[in-house]
């Protein structure tokens, strides 16, 4: 009896979630993600960011050397 009550409670709580899942889905780039193409985008953005970071670090060091000279 207790178990059945528990099950009923879970089913009741889960009902709105199921209802939400049945609503017309908003279009997202799901296929694009499944193909794994999103990793291409991430790699490219990461390369650009890291490239700019390396450039800034190099600039930082160059200015540091000039400061030491004075």
């Amino acid at each position, binding site marked *: 009896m207790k178990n059945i009550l528990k099950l009923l409670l879970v089913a009741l709580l889960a009902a709105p979630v199921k209802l939400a899942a049945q609503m017309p*889905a*908003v*279009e*997202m*780039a799901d296929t694009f993600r499944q193909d794994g193409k*999103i990793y291409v*985008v*991430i790699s490219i*953005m*990461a390369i650009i*960011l*890291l490239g700019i*970071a390396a450039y*800034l*670090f190099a*600039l*930082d060091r160059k*200015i540091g050397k*000039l*400061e030491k000279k*004075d």
Partner: protein
Amino acid sequence: MKGIWWKALGIILVLYSIIAGLLGEVPRLVILNETIRVLYYHVPMWFSMVAMMTISLVFSIRALGEKRGADLRASEFAQTGFLLATLGLLTGMVWARFTWGNFWTNDPKLNGTAVTMLIYLAYFVLRNSVEDPAKKARLAAVYNIFAFVMMIVFIGILPRMTDSLHPGNGGNPGFNQYDLNSDMRPIFYAAVLGWILIGTWISSLRIRYKSLSNEEHS
């Protein structure tokens, strides 16, 4: 701030926002669709811009106390803030085109931002037009305090008093859902902190470079 750790931290936080921002779960909303992720890249521009302008304000107040070098620091932080604002405006225009339908709408926040940027442009012009360093420092500091107050009025207060397309201002329930989304919040705040650190780094590079070239002149 000395050391390399905070610079690396800034880069790592922004890198995290790129990876987690593109892979993470986001609410499925009509019109916005996947572009909701722009929140991680467009909005931190404004948050970090306001941070740069606040640091600039602090240095301007110090410059009034005739602290050496404060005027230069105030100006360079405002320059970085201006760069971030430009990037925020351009990214916002692209986002607006595909969600609101136009590159520029008469949204109070957009017009307020445009006015704010003009006010800061006037700050740079004013500061560069005075020769005498002491006079320059005082004049620029007073104007920068005024500019900061205007910025708060134009992008912080006025848009909240009228209807705005931006979330959190006028009524726009379509956007309110992501305001408090727990999946998005950590990534968003990581991006904000990361960009503030990178902005501080760029400003510090400019300050050091400018101080070096000033020493050479004198």
